[in-house]
């Protein structure tokens, strides 16, 4: 089964073609990061405008690179949410028009299901599995007992981990996005700054606002006293605490559920310290992290998730398919 998939939930316009939920034939990603850098974060209206400009070019390139004909496509999968609503609607309406023009069935896919299924490119899923979803908008632990069955175990009670990275990068004047640069600096720094321990209320929940505030306060205090901040060490200190919290909650979830596999998904899955810690922690079960290409938003992951969604449900959406900025993974 050939799936053409579309992803436009944030600041990447992407179209991919994949086969049987496994083989990625093309995965074209048009990133807008450089446009948003001047604003220190994604500006939703600019993102929406850019998606309109790029959408047909990305379709064309994806079909060309996959070296196939439109008639070969069996299914269209498109991210329906969660994400920036204006951005989502561009991809959704492009996908609907394409599906209608060529009489191809269409399904809306949950963005986070896509991130989780990005791992299926490398390795077959075994169940039950626990997925740690970490990005600029998400910090969640998901239990899967079978394909396309998602049960939320816990989530952040305040900031997403990627959001904390961005905010700390901003106060340290490291630019946007904050994750990659803090990660890079942390590799050569030492965790010399004391960080608070995080004790969230829910069993598998996360909390990053306390850690974030602590770093911001420390930086501000140093500024007032005119003492320089050792940026590499601050990055290393924050990252160590941030990753420790992710690992502790994940460990608890894996132990309690008897999971046979642990998956990391989302943009923060590219974080080097997190990747190392995951493999060091879970030695007795199968562990996968996505290839770097599939960590950030891309349409290939939506095509793979879409394939499994279709296999499980055998249902497709009609042309009234709409986007939603918030959407519960457990309810799909």
């Amino acid at each position, binding site marked *: 089964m050939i799936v053409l998939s579309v992803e436009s939930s944030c600041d990447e316009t992407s179209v991919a073609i994949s086969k049987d939920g496994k083989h990625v034939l093309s995965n074209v990603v048009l990133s807008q990061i450089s446009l948003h850098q001047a604003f220190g974060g994604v500006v939703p209206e600019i993102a929406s405008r850019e998606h309109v400009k790029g*959408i047909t070019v990305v379709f064309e390139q994806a079909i060309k690179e996959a070296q196939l004909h439109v008639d070969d496509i069996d299914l269209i999968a498109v991210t329906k949410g969660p994400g920036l609503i204006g951005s989502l609607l561009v991809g959704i309406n492009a996908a609907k*028009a394409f599906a209608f*023009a060529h009489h191809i069935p269409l399904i809306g896919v949950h963005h986070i299901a896509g991130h989780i299924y990005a791992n299926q490119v490398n390795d077959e899923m075994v169940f039950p599995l626990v997925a740690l979803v970490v990005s600029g908008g998400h910090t969640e632990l998901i239990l899967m007992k079978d394909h396309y069955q998602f049960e939320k175990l816990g989530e952040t009670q305040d900031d997403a981990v990627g959001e904390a990275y961005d905010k700390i990068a901003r106060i340290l004047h490291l630019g946007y996005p904050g994750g990659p640069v803090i990660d890079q600096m942390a590799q050569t720094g030492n965790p010399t700054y004391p960080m608070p321990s995080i004790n969230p209320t829910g069993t598998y929940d996360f909390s990053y606002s306390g850690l974030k505030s602590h770093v911001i306060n420390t930086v501000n205090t140093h500024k007032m006293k005119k003492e320089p901040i050792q940026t590499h060490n601050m990055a290393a200190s924050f990252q160590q605490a941030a990753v420790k919290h992710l690992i502790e909650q994940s460990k608890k979830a894996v132990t309690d559920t008897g999971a046979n596999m642990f998956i990391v998904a989302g943009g923060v899955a590219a974080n080097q310290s997190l990747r190392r810690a995951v493999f060091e922690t879970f030695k007795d079960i199968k562990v996968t992290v996505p290839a770097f290409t599939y960590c950030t938003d891309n349409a290939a992951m939506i095509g793979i998730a879409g394939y499994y969604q279709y296999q499980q449900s055998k249902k497709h959406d009609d042309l009234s398919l709409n986007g939603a900025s918030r959407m519960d993974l457990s309810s799909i």
Partner: protein
Amino acid sequence: MKTSLKRLVVDSATDWLYVGIFEGDKALITHYEQGKNNHSATLMPTVEKLFKEVNLDVIHIDELIVGIGPGSYTGVRIGVVVMKMFAWTLNKPLYTVSSLALLASSFTSNGLVMPSIDARRGNAFLGIYDKEGQQLTLRHAEKHMALKDALNDYPKAHHVTQGEPSLPVILHSNVLVKVDDVHLVAPVYLRQTEAERNLS
């Protein structure tokens, strides 16, 4: 223009959704209804329903005409993306037309017309057109301004905020713009984003 051309016309820049299928300038079917901020959910089902009712497929269309704005940012994008996709994937000629010209074309008498589309906080996207018979001529460039000031500046113009577009008027006027490179089509917003305005 050959009269037998089949045309699909879409405008989603205002809170009213317009879809029409034409043969020449004769309407085979049209839809003009007020939406509830939901053009994204209703445009494609409406397109599907209209084609079904006239027993045609979008592949039979010879020309696409889309309202390019100005108007609601999210609204106008829906129609533009759909028509841009049809034009590219079915390799059909695409024409753009000002959503304000479409609005002005609904005015059935002669004289000065001021079509306006709400832009919030007392502002509007508006233009001044002259309507003579079946012909519309743009008199003052379309802009974003306080509606109150525009009503003062052009007291003689008929203010139009709603009305089903007239394709014969559009075809008789010099308002259609032929698209050379479909990939480059984007709405006319008339305004930078707030973030860009704050930066400059």
